[in-house]
């Protein structure tokens, strides 16, 4: 509680005590009012978050009581038969997001290293904003581009090549007729999360003190050895937190994924088949959902998505707070 703002009556020029009293009480009232209004706004934000969670769970109510927790793993989703289960979309969500993180994470970290330690200052000033601009592209436009440009290209070139060289891995099975697939969706998600992870990583790497890096260089270490031995170990927690934030973004992306993933309804190891995610299914089916159970089931998908998203975000916050350069790391 701050008491700094108490006016000092003696400091003001003589004003007649009654005017001074009125002024003082006006000021006290003003201070209290400002505090109340601002505090109210802050409380409103917290309230909104809580109410969002509440509303989503409430909307899912009928489906929860109907299907229980088995809904989470059930793979059947037949609106016409009032049978619903999140299995396929949960699988699609996890697979596409993790794949995006797998490809995008290292690329983003590399970009972060480039922008902080390797690029000349002028180049950094140009490329940094460009990378951030990638994050500013609305998902509907990126998804549209993915549908019209990336998917056909992937289907003609990427997928056959991957199938030919790595086809023994069940992930890279037979390409389908259109490029709409979990694979294409993962690529689009990768494009979305790289800028997020890259800019946070860049700031983390820039914060590693110069003197420790100099100490490493003075021992006859190459640039990469300085990065590997000093920069990366001291920013590990922060980079993991950044990656989790990127993952959260990927998990929740509805529109771009809906445009390129093909709304498939099977669980398959083959990335080149169509699939669906929690967010995309809600976006695709909600406008057309008529029955209450259908809507409630979509709300149930939302609740699952909310839970996963919150866990990912909270973990990122927790790891980020524990991040402290000065923490000892034995190797």
């Amino acid at each position, binding site marked *: 509680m*701050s008491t700094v703002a108490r006016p000092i009556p003696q400091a003001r020029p003589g004003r007649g005590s009654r005017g001074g009293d009125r002024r003082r009480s006006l000021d006290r009232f003003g201070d209290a009012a400002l505090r109340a209004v*601002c505090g109210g706004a*802050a409380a409103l934000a917290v309230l909104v978050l809580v109410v969002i969670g509440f509303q*989503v769970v409430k909307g899912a109510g009928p489906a929860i009581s109907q299907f229980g927790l088995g809904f989470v793993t059930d793979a059947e989703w037949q609106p016409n038969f009032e049978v619903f289960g999140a299995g396929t979309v949960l699988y699609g969500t996890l697979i596409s997001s993790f794949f995006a993180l797998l490809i995008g994470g290292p690329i983003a970290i590399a970009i972060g290293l480039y922008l902080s330690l390797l690029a000349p200052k002028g180049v950094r000033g140009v490329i940094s904003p460009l990378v951030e601009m990638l994050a500013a*592209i609305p998902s509907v436009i990126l*998804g549209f581009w993915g549908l019209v440009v990336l998917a056909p290209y992937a289907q003609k070139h990427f997928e056959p090549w991957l199938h030919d060289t790595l086809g023994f891995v069940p992930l890279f099975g037979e390409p389908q007729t259109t490029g709409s697939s979990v694979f294409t969706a993962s690529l689009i998600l990768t494009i979305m999360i790289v800028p997020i992870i*890259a800019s946070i990583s860049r700031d983390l790497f820039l914060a590693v003190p110069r003197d420790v890096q100099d100490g490493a260089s003075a021992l006859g270490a190459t640039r990469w050895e300085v990065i590997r031995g000093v920069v990366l170990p001291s920013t590990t927690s922060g980079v993991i937190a950044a990656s989790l934030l990127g993952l959260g973004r990927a998990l929740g992306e509805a529109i771009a994924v809906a445009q390129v993933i093909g709304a498939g309804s099977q669980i398959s190891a083959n990335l080149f088949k169509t699939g669906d995610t929690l967010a995309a299914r809600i976006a695709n089916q909600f406008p057309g959902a008529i029955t209450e159970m259908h809507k409630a089931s979509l709300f149930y998908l939302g609740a699952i998505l909310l839970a996963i998203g919150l866990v990912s*975000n909270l973990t990122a916050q927790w790891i980020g707070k524990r991040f402290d350069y000065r923490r000892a790391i034995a190797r």
Partner: protein
Amino acid sequence: MSEGPFDPAAPLRPTGNLRRRRVVSQVAEYGATAAAVLAVGVLAIVIYTVLARGAGAISFDFLVKGEPDGIGPMLVGTAEIVAIGTLIAAPIGVLIAIYLTEFGGGRLSGFVRLTLDLINGLPSIIIGLFVFGLLVNHHKQSAVAAAVALAIIMLPIVARGTQEVLALVPESMREASDALGVSRWRSVLTVILPSATGGILTATILAVARAAGETAPLILVDSVFDGKEVSLNPFEVVPNIPVKIFRLSEEANPEAITQAWGAGLVLLSFIMIAGLGARALLARSKARMAG
């Protein structure tokens, strides 16, 4: 004199395993550079595609007329929704920022900060579900519902941006104000806030740039429109750009595809210009703060 593992008088070329380590380091550097080039390359390709394919659709009619020739009503609608959303989010965001910087400290403000970060990370489709349940269910879709959804998305951006700028205001300014006997609320409203206007404006522009492109919540709460005419009634469905693009992208005919590119070009241009404007404003107000 220790006869070390090398001959000090030898020429200064790599000894021992340095040649190999050099190569590894070079490969790593090339890899990082390649990653950056890849990112910029993808950006260039996307922007180029939108530009090349969308430019053909742009015309006066396209920007002004309604369905099926143009996206005029959608532009107006998006402007209206975003404006209402800003009217809701900006004041609340600034108030929250004032709370965090002037009355903050302690567990409560840590909690509020966490909340803002969580809201920022919420999937926007969830926000759509929320607003649907709150305002649309048992009622109907409306621009206000869309605006509320966008306001929730914009709130953390405005709050955090404003808070960063307020934190930059030097403590000496507050101390000087207190020493003059000026009350806290007067200092905030007449001294501290005005010096932060640049930053608040920047944060608002960034929030607008983000909100203008949000499609997912709008699909749920403001999507049943025909877009033939401008519709301004905020309590009714209002045509908007993102949903239009989404719809067009699902159609197969070339006419629709071209229109989608055109609309995308308009949206992307607005967002890019807003982003550049915010960046310029930020640079200017940072310079003023420091100077």
